[in-house]
């Protein structure tokens, strides 16, 4: 019963996502939705690391950057196929995650936040200064469109389908991880590292793997970004972006995947609200874009004060209420 409902929900999700490019050929809307899909992938990975395992990262934008630059360089610099670029970007970001996991074995809370923040800053400097590979402040342009088996994905609709297809697979896999053994161990680690150790959880290995998977997903999103936009520049991968990503997970709620996914969709759409609501005035959009960071900040404060468990907590509360009503 429960299982068939899950399958039905997934199929409905696939249908909705697949229907969008059939219903609209609005290039602006599709491009905005591509950014949303990319953020869904990054946030799924960050929810795993921060929301489930309780390990903070203020360096996730850097992993996105590693994926984006690596894939851009491999394809447009070395002339290798798109898929090789994707694999290289994802793998390199995951390796970066392994490195960043090292401080997490010794540092907690604020100290880990500082270490990961430092990592983002270091990578940011590298993105700007390693001109031979990254193009420096000017960035890299002319990154080729994705191409698999001779099929070039050069229309907004095809890129939309590629990004959202990937996002669906990622969310599905992460959902399975969080409800299985690794997810339970992560939630245990989050609750009490001592308690997790006392249960036989190999905490060091769990942290390293979670960091690697989380960073790898950010890297994968980065490769999609590079080929979707065709251009990468350092500012996309600044510390500010890492803060925004973390804010999305906080608003979405810890110990939840659905919450952060919903939050990433809502908060990424916000500054581009005119894509969904065509009649929206230019001044409203200008306001939303100028005050974007402030709106995220306010959203975070509202969540921390009114619903500390975020959107995910609200979903859980609603579920248990409906379950209570069912059983009377």
């Amino acid at each position, binding site marked *: 019963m429960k299982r068939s409902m899950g399958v039905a929900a997934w199929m409905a999700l696939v249908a909705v996502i697949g229907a969008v490019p059939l219903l609209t050929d609005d290039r602006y809307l599709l491009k905005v939705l591509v950014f949303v899909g990319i953020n869904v992938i990054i946030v799924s990975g960050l929810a795993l690391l921060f929301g489930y395992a309780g390990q903070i990262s203020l360096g996730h934008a850097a992993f996105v950057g590693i994926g984006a630059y690596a894939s851009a360089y491999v394809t447009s610099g070395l002339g290798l196929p798109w898929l090789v670029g994707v694999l290289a970007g994802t793998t390199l970001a995951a390796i970066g995650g392994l490195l960043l996991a090292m401080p997490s074995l010794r540092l907690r809370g604020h100290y880990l936040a500082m270490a990961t923040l430092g990592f983002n800053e270091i990578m940011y400097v590298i993105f700007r200064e390693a001109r031979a590979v990254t193009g420096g402040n000017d960035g890299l342009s002319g990154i080729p469109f994705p191409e698999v088996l001779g099929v070039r994905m050069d229309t907004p609709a095809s890129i939309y389908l590629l990004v959202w297809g990937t996002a669906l697979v990622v969310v599905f896999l992460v959902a399975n991880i969080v409800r299985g053994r690794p*997810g339970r*161990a992560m*939630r245990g680690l989050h609750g009490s590292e001592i*308690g997790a150790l006392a*249960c036989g959880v190999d905490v060091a290995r769990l942290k390293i793997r979670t960091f690697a998977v989380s960073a790898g997903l950010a890297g994968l999103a980065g490769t999609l970004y590079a080929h979707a936009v065709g251009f990468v520049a350092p500012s996309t991968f600044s510390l500010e972006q890492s803060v925004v990503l973390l804010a999305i997970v906080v608003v979405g709620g810890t110990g939840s995947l659905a919450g952060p996914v919903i939050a990433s969709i809502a908060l990424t759409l916000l500054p581009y609200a005119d894509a969904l609501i065509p009649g929206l005035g230019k001044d409203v959009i200008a306001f939303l874009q100028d005050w974007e960071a402030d709106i995220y900040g306010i959203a975070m404060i509202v969540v921390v004060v009114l619903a500390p468990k975020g959107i995910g907590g609200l979903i859980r509360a609603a579920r248990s209420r409906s379950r209570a009503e069912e059983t009377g």
Partner: protein
Amino acid sequence: MSLLKVSHVTKRFGGLTAVDDLSFDVHEGSIKAVIGPNGAGKSTLFNLLTGFDRADSGAATFLGGDLLGRRPDTVVRRGVARTFQNTQLFEELTAHENVLVGVEPSLRAGFVRSALRIGIRAEERDARERADHILRLLDIERWRDVIAADIPHGVRRSVEIARALATGPQVLLLDEPAAGLNGAETQSLAAALYRIRDHGATIVVVEHDMGLVMEVSEEILVLDRGRKIAEGPPLLIQKDVAVIEAYLGEEVEDDDV
């Protein structure tokens, strides 16, 4: 037969010797109590045995190997589990989920198999059943779906014992399981300890509740300032002059005021 053999274990913190050349045996299938005044080194002893702290010297032989100097998770996987004086539950997880994390050592599914859901259905089902079985063993199944943060103090101790038991230990180290329990709860704890022992686990319990200690333990180890001052069956320990001086002497008067 001796299941756990502690020999000449010493631990110093700066100038303080918390555990001083301590040796004792734990017999298979027994319940052994460790008592002593605050600061006698009881919790330190548990920390040394379970890898949460490092001994300066000595050995703890268990199943032919030395426990000391191993990581906490390795010690658990070898078959020595513990609870804590300050419970270390996963507050956001339900009682059932807490115990499920305890089943961890017997599970195999990693990231890849979990993500792809390959061959994990039987493993997951068995784990859930085992967690339910242990909740029933400790008579706390009605708290199954309540998160730990909402579970009353007395039951929290039982949830932590259940979680430790889920790791499938041969030796279970309990650090003050009766602290904060009322009379009825202490009685049901005593009954639970017998059930756990009959289930196949050897128990070592640090406890201040003398009624419980005298009732359940077959042997008592008395520590004072890190040293063993007495060891033997409850009736003998009750009469031991050194024990009365070190442990009962001043403390009882203070506590009675």
